[in-house]
């Protein structure tokens, strides 16, 4: 069966450290993978998109990697801040269409 799994429901780290979130998928061949942030009671907010032929993408303190052999994406937040506390969702684009298939999310808590 097709699955998207994100590591642990919750991740607690100390301010200033690097947070690393994992997204693993099985039985999919996504053309693109996206990461979104979701705050309580709010809609998802787009962060980064990476294509299947890209290994790495960066935006300010954010970095995403995409390994189609391992079927895994890693999402890093460097120099984390309490304001980074939120749920982070990975989402797959499975083909030419724009439909997003989401993982269950990882709740990140950055403690001061």
């Amino acid at each position, binding site marked *: 069966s097709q699955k998207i799994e994100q590591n642990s429901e919750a991740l607690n780290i100390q301010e200033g450290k690097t947070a690393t979130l994992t997204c693993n998928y099985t039985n999919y061949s996504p053309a*693109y993978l*996206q990461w979104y942030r*979701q705050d309580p*009671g*709010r*809609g*998802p*907010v*787009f962060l980064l*998109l990476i*294509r299947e032929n890209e290994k790495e993408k960066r935006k300010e303190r954010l970095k995403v990697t995409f390994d189609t052999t391992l079927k895994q994406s890693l999402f890093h937040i460097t120099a984390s801040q309490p304001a980074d506390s939120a749920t982070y*969702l990975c*989402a797959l*684009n499975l083909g*030419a*269409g*724009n*439909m*997003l*298939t*989401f*993982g*269950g*999310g990882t709740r990140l808590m950055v403690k001061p």
Partner: protein
Amino acid sequence: EPEVTQTPSHQVTQMGQEVILRCVPISNHLYFYWYRQILGQKVEFLVSFYNNEISEKSEIFDDQFSVERPDGSNFTLKIRSTKLEDSAMYFCASSARESGLVPTPQHFGDGTRLSIL
């Protein structure tokens, strides 16, 4: 920054009643979507809409659901006869024209919480 707006923020409806959820996408966007999120579960795709027709839909989007773009600004989701299991947060999203075949980011509204009694 332009944003997607959804109304109402919370809708309470009796089972079996019809409900219409409303969305105003970002004005120059061409692709429109509805997703839902049952409490504590994943965000799930329902339907995408482009050029005044449905382009993709999921198994969830059965005959009880319909979408419409009645004018140049609104995008609506109608549930004809609501069931208890339709209780969820419903998110509208929009995106700009694709650049080649690369999907452009989807911009989400803050959702309508639908409670079926």
